[in-house]
């Protein structure tokens, strides 16, 4: 049973068909790349999968529990409900809580699993202290994986760009997802940083038993780590397959480079 199955989803903004009849099936533990030129509709796919936008038509099934057959439609659910079911994401245009500390950014993502309520917080019960300790520990642990643990008390906006992107991933991981959606996680990083990040992504995938769908602009990078790639252009899937197949696909080459181009990846 697939972790996620998008069936024929489409969305129209005003008159613009941003995504048309998009199909996607993600098996457990896969790392799949979603690529395509600017404006192809990749981020819009993420927005539909995470409930930010509702598809105009089509359905999205998500396998939300450890039981392989427990799938349900997540269309119409609110983003926070989908996150609580187990789909987490990062944003292409970084959306950290930039005036809060690095630690708080992560703790907010841990919030819905916290086991005390506002009343217990006001009275500072022992549940409060116990959970606060656990949450802080958990947050630090996640930050350490991305080597930004020592920056936990800095404001998010003061981190260098690359670390902000990492913090976005940490924050998404903190929601304890089954499926992680990364929207151009390496944007703005230099090649070395990008390489390191990709290794890290592979590492967390195994470490946390994740399925990952990754949007990337940098072709070489996707080719390097993704097992499977889906290519979007003008809101439509124009190709899908292994990196080797995609590399040779004339439609992809045309979409990316115009006529006569070739990848040097």
């Amino acid at each position, binding site marked *: 049973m697939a972790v996620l199955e998008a069936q024929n989803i489409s969305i129209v903004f005003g008159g613009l068909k941003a995504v048309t009849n998009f199909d996607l099936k993600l098996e457990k533990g896969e790392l799949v790349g979603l690529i395509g030129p600017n404006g192809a509709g990749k981020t819009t796919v993420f927005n539909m999968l995470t409930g*930010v936008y509702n598809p105009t038509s089509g359905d999205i099934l998500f396998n939300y529990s450890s039981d392989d057959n427990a799938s349900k439609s997540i269309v119409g659910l609110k983003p926070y409900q989908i996150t609580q079911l187990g789909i987490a994401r990062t944003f292409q245009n970084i959306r950290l809580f930039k*005036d*809060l*500390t690095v630690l*708080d950014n992560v*703790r907010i993502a841990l919030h819905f699993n916290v086991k005390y309520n506002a009343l217990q917080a006001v009275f500072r019960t022992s549940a409060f202290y116990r959970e606060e300790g656990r949450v802080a520990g958990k947050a630090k642990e996640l930050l350490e994986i991305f080597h930004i643990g020592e920056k936990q008390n800095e404001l998010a906006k003061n981190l260098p760009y690359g670390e902000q992107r990492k913090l976005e991933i940490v*924050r998404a991981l903190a929601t304890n997802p089954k499926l992680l959606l990364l929207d151009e996680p390496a944007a703005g990083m230099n090649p070395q940083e990008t390489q390191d990040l990709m290794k890290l992504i592979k590492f967390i995938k195994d470490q946390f038993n994740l399925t990952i769908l990754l949007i990337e602009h940098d072709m070489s990078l996707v080719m390097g780590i993704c097992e499977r790639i889906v290519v979007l252009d003008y809101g439509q899937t124009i190709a899908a397959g292994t990196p080797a197949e995609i590399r040779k696909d004339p439609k992809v080459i045309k979409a990316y480079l115009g006529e006569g181009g070739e990848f040097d990846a």
Partner: protein
Amino acid sequence: MKKNRIFNAVVILGASVVVFVILAALQYIGVIDEYNGQLLTLSGIYIVVALSLNLITGFTGQLALGQAGFMSVGAYTTAIAIMKFHVPMLLAILIGGLVAAVFGIIIGFPTLRLRGDYLAIATLGFGEIIRVLMINLGSLTGGAAGLKGIPAFSETENFVLDAVIKFSWVYVFAVITIVIISNLINSSPGRAIISIREDEIAANSMGINIAYYKIFSFTLSAFLAGVGGGLYGIYMGYLNPTMFGFMPSMNIVVIVVLGGLGSITGTVVASVAFTYIQEWLRVFKDLRLVIFGLALILVMIFWPKGLLGNKELSISGFLRKLFKRENNPERTVSQQNGSREGK
């Protein structure tokens, strides 16, 4: 960890008791005269109401311009409960808060869809509607003339003692309000609330139930404003709808912005400062509000983040530093909200 907890609690409790004893004693022996005692009491009421607004506007990030409306619901309910139904004072004040909280929920739901300026306008409208309601519910609220003869907190033969008792009531409520807001904000639900202010879309995607926390915030805020209103009615001894119109709502907004949106200590300091400055300006008679208007403009232009921005003054942080002999007095303003706990 455990030691720190107790240390914090003791410092806060100790500090509030010491401050109380000093202020109450100074009033009792007359060093703080009756007039200044009244002002201190009024400051306390402003602290309660302004903190309630800071929860909505400073921490949840929802611009609300009708806080005096919640205040008036609390004030009228409390006064009516005491005068018509002879409910004990403490209970009456809490009932006032609860009824205001119900209004908070009623107003919270429709405004969930609204953001920024639109929300501001809607809350302004609600404030005005409540005012018109108070004018039109004549049999209950006394209409435009209002209610007179609300009993005082105490009626001993001793005026000074009565004043001190009045101050004590308000002081206790102010401290409780400060503790509620500060403990809430420095907790996981509090961080969830703040995340809404920071970026609603990101918060939603991080599993935060935005609607729930907005309503929660509105309701608690309305409750506290209602309690503040109840205290205010008893403090004044009378009520009428003009006490809760647009201008009083704006005054509360002004206090919160002057203190710093999202700063609890800032709100406390600004509440006291605002009360006193308003009084001092009385010597200018009719020029008072002209100067006040001018001051608002200048402060907003030259001091846009208010007194403290979203930072906090911290006594226990200050003391802790003192005890550890870290001679670094200018760092008593903790770096940001929430940096004090979990250490």
